[in-house]
């Protein structure tokens, strides 16, 4: 997820994607919603930089299964180390941060988000807007399918010597949420998380305030779902993966439940509706993308260190992402979930239990299958990242199973989240182009006839 709009140098009237030499040299125009997001982020980091003087408490926490509304009800300010790491990746700083962490003894195989965060912390903890991040008053560990999260916060506890509260979210091994699982999460909120927050802030939880937050979340979620579903149009007015990570910025991070988030999503939806009306594609780094030859569904996070480069590989070939699972890691709203102001704690439990990282392999396959069909995709692509074993394990099986169920061919590329050493441009580009040409060849089917010449066979055929 991105909190800063970086390098989106597209503009109206630029050469269409796929045209020769699509480098854009004319001034940058940004959508109003993008400008708003940028402003929101800057303000958030300003608030963080003066948190101590302003007497605000700070919680470090994770994106999947985040309790933003609850923090909002306590007026605590969230810091999301994963997002800091991906921001560092986009700003070209992650390589040095990772080296710093490796010098401190972390292995090459440790998650690069973790090493990037540790490296940033060791070198002054300067955030993406150039301001120093405050130390945490609480490490709020929402555990949703990622074992590394626990190790990560153990490391941060060493560094900051502050309390950790863990919300253990049971894994959806059978693909369902049972009433017992839900109750288990609610009980932890009541017995551990809320008391800890009350102690740190010195305030009692105001349930009405929490409900107001949740009601605003719901409004933003409604708008976001309409944005996702707009990709069913042809041409699609959005890019549901590269563009999508900008769209999820506010809702998966510090802003869900805020007025700002509602305003952002309503503005975004209006812009998308405008593009549908004009039959126009989304803005990409290579300009407005109206040439949409291939509609793809994408699984797996992007490579943040080469984000625009990776995106350009798609736009240059006329490939657009119509849906992606990565943009659902912080909530599967398009599958019906909404925060419910009437049941504040229960709804938080449902949210945490339902996030994408907490889902089993079969339910991930079901979801991808649905996307491929509902968004009439020509193909799907898996970007398998080295860092994340729990997420990447089984992706080849996902690929084969989806091919079998949908008849749509899949592509597989490998890179990493924020370790620049694992992005092999030529290799990835080669695979992507081969894959797209394969889609093209299969579509056209008009191939010159093959006349075989006399074969020469090695070995024996019984």
């Amino acid at each position, binding site marked *: 997820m991105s909190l800063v709009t970086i390098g989106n140098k597209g503009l109206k009237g630029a050469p269409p994607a796929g045209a020769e030499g699509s480098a854009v040299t004319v001034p940058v125009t940004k959508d109003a919603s993008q400008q708003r997001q940028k402003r929101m982020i800057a303000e958030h980091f300003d608030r963080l930089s003066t948190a101590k003087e302003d007497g605000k408490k700070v919680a470090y926490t994770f994106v999947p299964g985040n309790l933003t509304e609850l923090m909002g009800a306590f007026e605590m300010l969230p810091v999301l180390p994963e997002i800091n790491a991906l921001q560092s990746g986009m700003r070209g700083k992650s390589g040095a941060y990772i080296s710093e962490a490796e010098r401190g003894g972390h292995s090459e195989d440790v998650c690069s988000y973790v090493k990037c965060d540790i490296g940033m912390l060791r070198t002054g903890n300067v955030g993406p807007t150039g301001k120093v991040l405050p130390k945490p008053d609480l490490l709020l560990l929402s555990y949703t399918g990622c074992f590394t999260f626990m190790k990560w916060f153990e490391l941060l506890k060493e560094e900051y010597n502050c309390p950790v509260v863990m919300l253990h979210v049971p894994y959806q091994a059978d693909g369902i949420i049972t009433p017992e699982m839900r109750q288990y999460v609610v009980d932890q909120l009541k017995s551990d998380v809320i008391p800890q927050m009350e102690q740190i802030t010195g305030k009692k939880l105001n349930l009405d305030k929490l409900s107001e937050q949740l009601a605003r979340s719901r409004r933003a979620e409604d708008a976001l779902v309409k944005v996702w579903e707009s990709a069913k149009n042809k041409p699609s007015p959005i890019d549901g993966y590269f563009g999508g990570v900008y769209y999820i910025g506010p809702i998966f991070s510090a802003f869900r439940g805020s007025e700002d988030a509602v305003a952002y999503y309503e503005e975004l939806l209006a812009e998308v509706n405008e593009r549908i009306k004009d039959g126009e594609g989304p803005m990409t780094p290579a300009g407005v993308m109206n040439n949409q030859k291939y509609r793809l569904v994408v699984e797996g996070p992007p490579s943040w260190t080469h984000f625009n480069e990776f995106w350009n590989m798609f736009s240059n070939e006329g490939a657009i992402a119509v849906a992606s699972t990565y943009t659902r890691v912080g909530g599967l709203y398009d599958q019906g979930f909404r925060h419910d102001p009437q049941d504040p704690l229960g709804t938080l439990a449902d949210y945490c239990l339902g996030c994408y990282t907490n889902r089993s392999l079969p339910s991930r396959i079901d979801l991808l299958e649905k996307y491929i069909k509902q968004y009439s995709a020509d193909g799907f692509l898996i970007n398998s990242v080295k860092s994340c074993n729990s997420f990447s394990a089984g992706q080849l099986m996902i690929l084969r199973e989806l091919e079998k169920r949908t008849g749509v061919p899949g592509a597989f590329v*490998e890179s990493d989240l924020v370790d620049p050493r694992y992005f092999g441009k030529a290799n990835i580009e*080669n695979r992507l182009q*081969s894959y797209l040409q394969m889609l093209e060849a299969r579509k056209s089917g008009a*191939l010159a006839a093959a006349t075989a010449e006399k074969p020469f066979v090695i070995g024996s055929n019984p």
Partner: protein
Amino acid sequence: MRVCVGVDLGSTTTKAILIDEEGKIVGKGITNSRSNYEVASAVARDEAVTSARFNLLARKLEGLKGEGATEIGALDEKLRAAFRLELYLDELAALRQRVTEVVAAAGVRGTAQVKDALAGIFDRMTTDASALFLGGDARKSDFFRDIAGAAFMHAAEKLANERGMRFEELTWPFDRAILDVETELRELDFAATLGRAARRIAGGLPEGAKKRFFEIVDSVGTEPIDEVAFSGTGYGRQTLPFPKAAVRSEILCHGRGAHRYFPGTRTVLDIGGQDTKAIQVDDKGVVTTFQMNDRCAAGCGRYLGYIADELNLGLHELGPLALKSCKSVRINSTCTVFAGAELRERLSLGEEREDILAGLHKAIMLRAMSLLARSGGVKSELTFTGGVCKNDMATKVLRELVDENYGSDITLNAHPDSIYMGALGAAMFALDDLRAGKANLLVVKRPDKQAMKNYANPDDACASCG
């Protein structure tokens, strides 16, 4: 004759295939990729055109049978060899010229003694050339750099001995000049060159047959070969000024080329210089899915190249040596560099070279098997392509592993022309484009010779090191 051209720019060699409008293969050419892909693709294409003309010639020569020339096959062979000789002599003259320029510009290093010795070396090379091509011995390589390099070093060694000079005093001008010469595109006057070659070997023919022979040679030399469509593929395809529409992925091309030779093919294993691809194709030769090695080139052709260097062997010697092995030594290292270390360790422990080599071949093919499995496995007919399929040990091990993993009823194909599969696939895409009215052409800029000379003139800041 109208032809469609496919070029496959590999990391080691560049291949070209010509097909006619019916899709029949009419010519093929191969050259080393050098440091200049543009030249490499033009040379490979010229070679393919030459081979197309020779194929045409072979058909016409059949007609001489009734005119007293009995050994048509041998005549054809001899003419090809003589043609190669003419090309070699032309290129040798260019090399001599370049060496002269390099020495002239080299200041103190270019003494009269060196100049005279170099003249002697080139005289010898020119005299020996005929035996190299017409002597009937097999050459280790067909590339000018390799043949001329070996001949030069041989002559230089002898001359240095005779004249009491240091060998190194004579080799530096060659090292500087060879790169310029091999990256310079020469216009080939095919008809004139073939004419010279024909006259060189026609001595033994009866008069009537000789006259007919010259007529045929002249008609083939001037037969127009028009390129009507082009498509390029391979590792170097992005660096060339090909129109984007004329560039095809090597995965598609290899899949299609292999299927063209063996229509029953459903899986293709391609092991090239630096990557390995496992490709599944449908009944039309269209790729349905593929897997490639990533991040690490262990298990590719370069792995064998590295091992050959370690053992001081030629790449082509590895397979035959490994085939002599009675027991395969297990090599545990998956990394090329570590395998090199393991190789030295095994040698020091007294293991036989052939047994270690057998183990190394197995290590490569095991990597390929894992890629095949990831791509969906082998179902009925597997075609093995790429440079490594020329290695008989590699194909033997592959056969064994396929038997073990997928059963012995799997057909395994390889073709002597397997290295051309990518170029063939590209040529077929060019034919598609032609039929669809969207043909592209490969335009090669012939470099400005004067500009090149200025660029290549050695700067003598370092000449004082001697």
